């Protein structure tokens, strides 16, 4: 489904990603871990098409298409979803209105008729329960005045509504208390489909207790320096990143 080959990217001429290789198949969950500043969020942003990052080399193929060649909105319409680390506030625009616009643009791209108000509301009701989303939040301005937990929950709610084939969760666990974490993570797990894949970007192992990964990759200085099964995450939790850093630095030296 997703094939990343030797991906390199920089911001303000500062190289951040220095050759990422990653293969993701439908149905898989991949966790990307690593110390601060290793390039985890950059990877998520580059996949989603954020403009301030310049791709300087490599390729990304998504379901047979050159992902890097697509505009951010077309990547979304092709089924790429990014749950933001810092969801943006849009004053005066309700979550409902925002999502209706989004869904209908995605449907239009796929040659489907727009959803009418009734079917849309039905869909909202159904997905709301999945992330235990409070209905009153939906009519409020998008993310405006939402607590950290509400914002993250809203991201997963949007993910549920848009039914992406590739979901990238960028530090979705940051700023969540343990209950909110469980709700959000359970939502993600329930949304898993055999034809969809998930990339979970996180600092900590605790999220992976709920969203169990098939593979864990450790990102350090813009490269994946170690890959393994979910046990790797536990090992990291126990030992920290220093041993991996050392290993990686030694190889480089």
């Amino acid at each position, binding site marked *: 489904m997703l094939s990343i080959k030797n991906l390199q990217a920089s911001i303000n001429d500062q190289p951040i990603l220095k050759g990422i290789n990653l293969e993701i198949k439908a149905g898989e969950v991949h966790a990307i871990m690593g110390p601060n500043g290793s390039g985890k969020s950059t990877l998520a942003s580059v996949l*989603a*098409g*954020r*403009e*301030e990052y310049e791709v300087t080399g490599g390729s990304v193929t998504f379901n047979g298409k050159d992902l890097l060649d697509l*505009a*951010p*909105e077309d*990547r*979304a*319409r092709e089924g790429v*979803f*990014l749950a*933001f680390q810092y*969801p*943006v*506030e*849009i*004053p*005066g*625009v309700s979550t409902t*209105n*925002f*999502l209706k*616009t*989004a*869904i209908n*643009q*995605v449907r239009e*791209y796929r040659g489907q008729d727009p959803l009418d108000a009734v079917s849309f509301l039905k869909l909202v009701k159904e997905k709301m329960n999945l992330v235990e989303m409070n209905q009153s939040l939906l009519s409020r*301005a998008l993310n405006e005045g939402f607590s950290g937990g509400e914002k993250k929950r809203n991201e997963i709610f*949007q993910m549920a509504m*848009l039914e992406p084939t590739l979901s990238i969760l960028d530090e979705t666990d940051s700023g969540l208390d343990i209950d909110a974490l469980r709700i959000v993570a359970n939502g993600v797990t329930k949304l898993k489909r055999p034809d969809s894949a998930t990339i979970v970007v996180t600092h900590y192992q605790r999220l992976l207790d709920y969203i169990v990964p098939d593979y864990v990759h450790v990102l350090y200085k813009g490269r994946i320096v170690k890959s393994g099964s979910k046990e790797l995450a536990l090992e990291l939790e126990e030992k920290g990143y220093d041993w991996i850093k050392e290993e990686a630095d030694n190889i480089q030296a």
Partner: protein
Amino acid sequence: MSKDTDILEELTSGEYKYGWETKIEAESAPKGLSEDIVRFISAKKEEPEWLLEWRLKAYRHWLTLEEPKWPNVNYPEIDFQDVIYYSAPKKKPQLNSLDEVDPELRETFKKLGISLDEQKRMTGVAVDAVIDSVSVATTFKKKLGELGIIFCSFSEAVREHPELVKKYLGSVVPITDNFYATLNSAVFSDGSFAYIPKGVRCPMELSTYFRINAANTGQFERTLIVADEGSYVSYLEGCTAPQRDENQLHAAVVEIYAAKNAEVKYSTVQNWYPGDKQGRGGIYNFVTKRGICAGDYSKISWTQVETGSAITWKYPSCILKGDHSVGEFYSVAVTNNRQQADTGTKMIHIGKNTRSRIVSKGVSAGHSQNSYRGLVRIMKRAENSRNFSQCDSLLMGDKCGAHTFPYIEIGNSTGQVEHEATTSKIGEDQIFYCNQRGISTEDAVALIVNGYCKEVLNQLPMEFAVEAQKLLALTLEGSVG
């Protein structure tokens, strides 16, 4: 960043979608202004002697005035002798129904998406269509007539209700008021008149669509709305103009009179031709709009969505004379390309316990300049008066400007005046967030701008609000990418 700027450029360069000209034979006065022209206009309209005198008085006073130079706008000097002051479609026989309206005229309305038939059938709006200064179709008159409501063209009001016109004309905006209002008083061609009798709640929105038509014609509309004691009316004004090259002068006057316990809501969606990307052509819009809350507990509310005109100079104001009277001003002003807008309001608190509220939302894109200019004056005897003002500016790109000129004059120590102002830019973060959900940049901008203007758009009647939202999107089309 530079890429974003290019995209901004592209998006803000949306072309005017309503550019065409209806081919209707016009009967025009020769160019220029003189006492003879004023007499010509008055004679054409078969006006009574008192009105001719009123016009001449205004004209003579106008000769002593100079064009105001204080607004924050720049334009080449207008040659007032190069303007045609009167043009009217040739008289047609009286029409009984819309079917008899000139098919070409109806086609024009269709292009605007406001076919009279549809309006009549679906919205229950009585439409007084003004094309090139002379009213050609008035609907729902009968129904209004049963309630004693008068809603007709200004000329008709002069003929049929001279006592009312004589009593209220110039009572809110006197003929000596300002350069453009005085000019209008001398040469106004036509407009609308509405009178709501005591205790009557007007059951439908009164609506007028304006269009500037024959080339090189100044448009001088005159509107007078009188709400008698305890009455209520909501009035809609909307306009689009055909595309052309010469600058067109538009100097309208709107007067509103609200008696005791009366309430008037006046909503405008303005979309005059703004000129092309380089700023060529476009309408000069110098409007004087003012309402007086003459009686106690009366209320006047202005809502405007301004997207058009090369130059806008407009300050819908409220004189709060009656005790406990309320004045409101809700405004969205969007400028793009080379447009310039200097707009705002005046709230003059004279009566006790008067309240006013100002919500102004400016959106600037392209190379445009957008100024808010507002005056809040609390007079000596206006005890316990309150004002709240909120002025927000939204900038798109780095070549436009937003300016705020608030004036506050307080003559009574019990007065309370609050002023809040914000300036923001549409964030790349916001646009990216929308993109990531599958929303195109153009629609993202429309969504964000509409959200930003929501407080004002909410004040508009439903069908007008939908139109206004489309207009905002259309105006900013082609402005961020």
